[in-house]
């Protein structure tokens, strides 16, 4: 007897790969684990306006880059302007250019964003230690005194920043700070003081996202680096942390808008909140990232809908294996119930059951006549197939005449399978009597119904199509059940007479 170890390793590998692939798809590509999930999205319009001076104009506008929001769609409208979107190491910018601009100019940038839930500002590399700010002679003493005072009350870079922010916004500020604030904005002062201690800090701009707001402006925030992460401070208000619905528009620390060849430049934002399907959103994001690698969404729509059906078969097969190996239900034809269940998906369960019983009952009647004709098996089966098609046609017509639209779906039944079912049932009837026909026919319908219920559940359909890893898990389960040497549920009843203690 050879070792079972490689087998169990294979099963475990399939299982782990399947689960891992599904979890990866769910978390990394934010494919929702449940169907019908909705996500919020934000449509933000930025309107850049300036007055042209008739000279060549170049407008450089910083574009949003925030780990908490993913860009789904972005576009810029700017009649007559050349547009490039640059992506350098510091930030992403849209650059509009025109040979001659005079009068009022309006440039638009639209972006659709979805929250990613990632609200930490992780730094992928250590920022450079900033050079200390050289204070003017009038401010130097006050600044140094304040810095020393706060420094002594802090333990880390972060607590230094927190204490400093508190001091800058205290109800009764020290005279030193009052003096310094006359020449510096709170954010500037905050950054300069941090820089004096060699702590990386930068000024960033953020936009508060509120539904249906227009003519909004950017607010200034300060990011302070500590231990691999940037912390957000609002030095104007003395608060710390990321407010809800804040979109960081520019994190480079440079200016948001630069206009050459224009005056009175300004930028206004308007925004709109929207809900969209989480699945559609995830697909759009994957398309943007070219991450559709192992997804069926890159197929043409027709093949996609084909696969939606095909990928349900493993579920039905799993059901059949389970019911036969672990429960011990007899069916007529091993996988016939799966095909019937697939037809039920088109017809719905009740209509399907009625239709199936009608066709088989009619088929059996006609088959009993054929059996008197003494035909060769092949011609008899072929005759039954043709008769089944006739019955289906007849029922379809009748239900159409009577206005029963459900009846029209009867055409989804696999005719060859039905013909074989009728043939087998008929032989079974002759050989073992009607009781066995009821047992096996009922067993098949029972299995088909269970398979249908499993296959028609919307979350099952969602999973088998979106998380292909689940098929590896099904494969592992089927392999595992192929190793089951224990009693079937119905055998416990069958062997009941042997259960007496000896």
């Amino acid at each position, binding site marked *: *007897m050879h070792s079972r170890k490689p087998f169990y390793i294979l099963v475990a590998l399939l299982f782990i790969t399947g689960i891992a692939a599904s979890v990866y798809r769910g978390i990394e590509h934010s494919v929702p684990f449940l169907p019908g999930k909705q996500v919020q999205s934000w449509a933000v319009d930025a309107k850049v306006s300036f007055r042209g001076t008739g000279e060549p104009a170049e407008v450089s506008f910083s574009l949003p880059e925030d780990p908490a929001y993913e860009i789904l769609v972005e576009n810029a409208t700017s009649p007559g302007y050349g547009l490039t979107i640059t992506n350098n190491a510091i930030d992403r910018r849209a650059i509009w250019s025109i040979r001659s601009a005079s009068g009022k100019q309006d440039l638009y940038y639209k972006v659709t964003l979805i929250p990613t839930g990632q609200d930490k500002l992780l730094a992928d590399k250590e920022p450079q230690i900033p050079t200390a700010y050289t204070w003017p002679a009038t401010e130097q003493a006050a600044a140094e005194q304040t810095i020393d005072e706060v420094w002594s009350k802090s333990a880390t870079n972060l607590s230094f920043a927190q204490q400093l922010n508190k001091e800058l916004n205290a109800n009764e500020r020290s005279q030193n700070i009052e003096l310094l604030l006359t020449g510096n904005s709170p954010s500037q002062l905050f950054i300069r003081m941090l820089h004096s201690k060699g702590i990386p800090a930068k000024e960033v701009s953020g936009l508060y996202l509120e539904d249906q707001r227009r003519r909004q402006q950017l607010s200034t925030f300060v990011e302070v680096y500590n231990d691999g992460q940037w912390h957000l401070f609002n030095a104007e208000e003395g608060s710390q942390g990321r407010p809800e619905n804040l979109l960081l528009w520019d994190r480079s620390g440079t200016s948001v808008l630069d206009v050459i060849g224009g005056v009175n430049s300004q930028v206004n934002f308007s925004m709109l909140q929207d809900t969209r399907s989480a699945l559609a959103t995830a697909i759009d994001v994957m398309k943007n990232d070219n991450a559709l690698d192992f997804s069926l969404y890159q197929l043409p729509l027709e093949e996609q809908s084909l696969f939606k059906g095909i990928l349900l078969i493993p579920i039905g097969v799993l059901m059949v294996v389970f019911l036969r*190996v672990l429960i*011990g239900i007899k069916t007529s034809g091993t996988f016939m119930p799966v095909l019937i269940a697939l037809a039920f998906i088109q017809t719905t369960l009740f209509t399907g059951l009625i239709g199936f019983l009608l066709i088989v009952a009619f088929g059996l009647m006609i088959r009993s006549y054929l*059996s008197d004709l*003494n035909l*060769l*098996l*092949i011609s008899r089966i072929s005759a039954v197939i043709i008769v089944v098609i006739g019955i289906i046609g007849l029922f379809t017509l009748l239900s159409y005449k009577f206005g029963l639209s459900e009846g029209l779906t009867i055409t989804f039944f696999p005719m060859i399978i039905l013909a074989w079912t009728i043939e087998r049932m008929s*032989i079974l009837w002759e*050989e*073992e009597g009607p009781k066995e026909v009821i047992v096996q026919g009922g067993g098949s319908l029972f299995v088909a119904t269970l398979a249908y219920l499993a296959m028609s559940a919307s979350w099952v359909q969602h999973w088998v199509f979106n998380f292909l890893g689940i098929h590896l898990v099904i494969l592992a389960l089927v392999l595992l059940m192929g*190793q*089951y*040497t*224990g*009693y*079937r*549920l119905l*055998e*416990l*009843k*069958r*062997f*009941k*007479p*042997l*259960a007496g*203690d*000896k």
Partner: protein
Amino acid sequence: MFLANPATLRRNGVLCMNKRNIDYIGRYNPRKFYKRVDDKLTTKQLALANNIAVPDLIGTVSEQHGIAEIPGMVDNTDGFVIKPSKGSGGKGILVVTKVENGRYYKPNGQEVTPSEVDRHVSNILSGLFSLGGKPDVAIVEGLIQFDPVFDGYSYEGVPDIRLIIFKGFPIMGMLRLSTAASDGKANLHQGAVGVGIDIATGKGLHAVQFDQPIDLHPDTKKELISIQVPQWDTLLHTASMAYEMSELGYLGTDMVLDKNKGPLLLELNARPGLAIQIANGRGILPNLRHVEKMGNHNMTVEERVAYAKIHFSANS
């Protein structure tokens, strides 16, 4: 309770379908030897080559046009049996016990018209009864003149003796008696009576119908436990020889007792059913494990039968 406790069944050594398929059929029955038992014609030829007695072969029909030759084959017989060569589970067996002026009668006295016979043979050839629906050959065999010792024990049918031969050892036996409910057939699930037989003596142990213990034959009211299978030693020998012939480790042999020719091998089965355990009122696993523990042996048929009679008797 409606269901048996699986732990009790395991303790009693009851073999179940999944375990039989994986641990016994899968392990001890090499696929390439299946055709020796799945094709009854091959089995018959092998048996004859190994000096194992089988029912007389009247003829075979392998083509549809050959059906016309059947009346000629059977005209001078007392009766005949038509069976598919690759049939399973006793399907497609037609028994005619009386031939009179070209008219055929089944054991229950019903007439079978020649066209019904033709259709039956045609169905056999088309593969209706064969595994996987493959085209098949119909075998026409002589009727077995069954031993009168079973008179009163079987209703309208030939009682047959099923033995499970594991690696050449007969480890469990059962006598199958047809009843009115089983329509003269010896299949337990169709209502035939199964009587567990002691390997050592050939005496009845325990009887069941429809998986329930019974004492008397439902039709003839004869006491079943008191049954004694004659020529038991010959039966054990013949069945054990089937191991060398088929090279299948886990084998079911079906035999009948003919009045004149003694035990005849009817067919071999590479997937023998589990009902024999119910008929014997005990699980088969202890005996299977006993043989597995012995490892490879070089015992002759005689030695194996002697060994089995000591170790696999219900009273040992």
